[in-house]
């Protein structure tokens, strides 16, 4: 365990910075003013956090009140954004959800001015008290174990002193001057496995780089989070960038690197901005730069903005990209830890891996190993989205089952629908069915089930989701994102996609499934890099668990969940349709709905684009719009004019 500074001078420098941090924190804490903490990450802003913040400021002005408005990162409860925590002297801190500008005004006027905490709008108190139920009463809060995201949503990501006051940089200060081997041993003993997806032991990777005989070494933080449906890395970068910088500094010290690069998606402008600010602040206080905390150890960190190529998440492609080339993976070995960026030994770790390092060193390997399972210790962080009641970021100890995560912690499936499948690991992962909900979440169990931990995207699907279409969707993605270097991935994924497209259009043939399987296995075996080797996983898992759905598409031209548009049709049940009502007419984007002779409505199948808007707009008391598959089940109703024409003919 590394809790005390080892190097005298570094310790002194650190303590003086820490004193300043604590002074600032007590000044904030002890201020008698109310404090309003607003989550200002991308999801918060997308949900209107900026407008909410403005509304608070205006309302405070109007009421002649003052309060401290504090921008914080994301607490991971995306369903509740914009999230606001209000501290009023004499009350526990209260978390309000979906705080629209209107709600913001109410909070100021009723709560801050008059002391009514507005029970109907709060989610709970942030600490136990006698007055207001605690958020800890909800499994969504109580069953999380926050290690990576411990400080996310508690500190201002643009103020390094807040990170310091929460215990930040103590691990780096403790490491300096110590024998690097001890640090790597601690990481190895903790059993930490890389959180980028493959789960390679981090300590082993570091040791490989440390032992490599080279003048210069490099470290890279892989923040090229490209999985559609995953945004954990972005949230961490936006909520607590310092933790990553600290983890990188420790790694650089341990392996003997003096240069670090953060490869971050250009599609994350806010994260880039916050990270730049953090690097600058860390440099000013001496946590980065030529001489860190006055010691002889120095580290410079550069940001490299990725230009949108999913394959650059693969480490050798990422290196090509930084070097200014097309991001095409190369054969391994040599591994980057032996020969990486500019041919230097290079440690590449994911955002979450680096973020875990300071905590592991501060709390000790034994502590970390005590969390989660034996073979994948620690926590896993998932962005659980799709058909769940409480989507967002969830951090849980490994070993928790899928069932507990989806049905208990995230509140299960909304709208009384049935759970159908969960897609884990993005385009490289797989879809697991209800029967496998008891699978514990760890690297090995998920791989065994045919999915993959991946970087942590989890999309929950209900009965309305077609698994053939989901497989087609992922293949469409991988096929577009394939770098095109090797034969199997370039041409093989293209054929997989074409076959899947045919099946979802109702043009599937006998033999297609066998061919899908055969091609998939060949692509897995023959491809050059991890991207190609895992690309067929969505096809293989859906074939394994949902073969019947494929067969219905091919043999009956029927999409059981009614999602494949070529295989479905909408029609209006004339028995149920209300004469004179035209709610559906306006909703139709293509004017496919016409009035029948007895002033009811019908769908012109030749125009219908099957967007389903009419079904949404039809008043529930009628529920006259029906969806059927195969499409020939829809009754044919002709327009009055067509009828006329037919009669005349």
């Amino acid at each position, binding site marked *: 365990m590394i809790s005390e500074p080892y190097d005298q001078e570094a310790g002194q420098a650190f303590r003086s910075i820490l004193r300043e941090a604590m002074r600032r924190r007590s000044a904030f804490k002890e201020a008698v003013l109310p404090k309003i903490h607003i989550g200002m990450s991308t999801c918060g802003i997308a949900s209107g956090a900026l407008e909410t913040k403005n509304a608070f400021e205006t309302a405070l002005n109007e009421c002649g009140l003052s309060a401290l408005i504090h921008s914080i990162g994301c607490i991971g409860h995306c369903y509740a954004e914009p999230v606001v925590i209000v501290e009023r002297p004499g009350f526990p801190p209260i978390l309000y959800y979906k705080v629209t500008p209107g709600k913001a005004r109410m909070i100021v006027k009723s709560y801050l001015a008059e002391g009514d905490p507005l029970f109907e709008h709060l989610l709970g108190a942030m600490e136990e008290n006698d007055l207001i139920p605690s958020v800890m009463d909800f499994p969504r809060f109580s069953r999380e174990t926050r290690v990576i995201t411990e400080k996310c949503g508690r500190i201002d990501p643009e103020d390094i002193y807040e990170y310091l006051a929460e215990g930040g940089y103590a691990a780096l200060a403790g490491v300096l001057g110590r024998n690097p081997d001890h640090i790597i041993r601690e990481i190895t003993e903790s059993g930490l496995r890389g959180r980028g997806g493959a789960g390679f032991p981090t300590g082993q990777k570091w040791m490989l780089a440390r032992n490599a005989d080279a003048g210069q070494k490099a470290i890279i933080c892989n923040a090229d989070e490209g999985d559609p449906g995953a945004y954990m890395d972005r949230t961490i970068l936006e909520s607590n960038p310092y933790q990553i910088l600290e983890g990188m500094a420790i790694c650089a010290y341990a392996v003997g690197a003096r240069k670090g690069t953060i490869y971050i998606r250009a599609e994350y402008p806010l994260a880039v901005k916050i990270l730049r600010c953090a690097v600058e602040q860390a440099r000013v206080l001496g946590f980065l730069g030529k001489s860190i905390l006055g010691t002889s150890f120095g580290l410079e960190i550069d940001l490299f903005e990725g230009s949108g190529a999913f394959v650059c998440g693969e480490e050798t492609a990422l290196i090509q990209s930084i070097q200014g080339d*097309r991001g095409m993976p190369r054969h391994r070995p040599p591994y980057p830890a032996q020969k990486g960026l500019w041919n230097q030994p290079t440690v590449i770790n994911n955002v979450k891996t680096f973020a875990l390092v300071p905590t592991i060193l501060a709390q000790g390997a034994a502590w970390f190993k005590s969390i989660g399972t034996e073979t994948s210790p620690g926590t896993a962080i998932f962005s659980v989205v799709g058909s769940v009641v409480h989507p967002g970021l969830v951090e849980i100890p490994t070993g928790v089952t899928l069932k507990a995560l989806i049905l208990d912690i995230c509140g299960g499936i909304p709208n009384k629908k049935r759970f159908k499948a969960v897609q884990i690991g993005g385009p490289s992962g797989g879809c697991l069915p209800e029967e496998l909900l008891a699978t514990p979440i760890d690297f090995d169990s998920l791989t065994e089930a045919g999915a993959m931990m991946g970087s942590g995207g989890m999309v929950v699907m209900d009965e309305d989701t077609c698994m053939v279409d989901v497989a087609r969707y992922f293949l469409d993605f991988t096929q577009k994102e394939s*770098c*095109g270097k090797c*034969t199997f991935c370039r041409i093989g994924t293209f054929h997989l996609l*074409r076959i899947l497209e045919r099946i979802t259009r109702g043009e599937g043939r006998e033999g297609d499934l066998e061919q899908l399987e055969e091609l998939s296995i060949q692509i897995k*075996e023959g491809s050059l890099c991890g991207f190609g080797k895992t690309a067929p996983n969505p096809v293989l898992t859906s074939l394994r668990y949902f073969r019947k759905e494929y067969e219905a598409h091919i043999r009956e031209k029927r999409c059981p969940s009614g999602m494949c548009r070529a295989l479905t049709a909408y029609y209006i049940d004339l028995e149920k349709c209300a004469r004179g009502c035209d709610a559906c007419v306006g909703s139709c984007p293509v004017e496919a709905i016409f009035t029948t002779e007895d002033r009811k409505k019908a769908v012109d199948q030749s125009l219908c684009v099957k967007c389903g808007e009419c079904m949404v707009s039809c008043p529930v008391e009628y529920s006259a719009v029906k969806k059927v598959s195969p499409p020939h089940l829809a009754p044919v109703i002709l327009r009055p004019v067509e009828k006329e024409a037919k009669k005349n003919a």
Partner: protein
Amino acid sequence: MGNMVKLIVDGTELEVEEGTVLLDACLDHGIYIPHLCHLKGMEQPPASCRLCFVSIEGIAHPVPSCTLTVREGMVVQTDTNAVRGLQISALRLLLSVHDVDCAHCPANKKCALQKIAKFLHIGLKAKGLEIYLKEPRVVQDHPLIDYYPNRCVLCGRCIRVCRAQNGLPLMSFAKRGFDTVISFYGAASTLGCKTCFACLKICPVGAITLKTPNS
């Protein structure tokens, strides 16, 4: 001459110089392994054509022989079922996007695809796969050379020899994934081409040809 190492390929003992690429060692000793992207003496193998697989004792899956250097005591098999299976499927994939019109192709009878297909005892048909050809069929941007995307196997050998000849390559891969092509971008305006035609000579499939008056 460096140290020599002994290895066994298909039951025959070979003695080759340490550091030799396994594929080269086999080819030099008359053991044919299908390949497209390999160029002797290259520093880092692209390993992109996925044809030169071999089985190595002690390694579960077939490995491209261009990525390995010979080791003392290495036991190699070039014709296991797994190896042949991968080679046949790679070739079929290549053929599924190949304009099989040998009669009108300058590479006819010396084409690497023909040779490999013959070696693997399969026809020039992509059995079971739909054929997909790109548009346009011929790219005529270069003042002297025409490029046929539907013949090209994207081995990249032309790019590498062009770089070797000129210092700067005058051709490059462009676009990505399935749409990847060889591009002579900028060649028309700068005309840096030294007309060495090294690219044309190295092309295994006739994808790069001299401009003909009626092409």
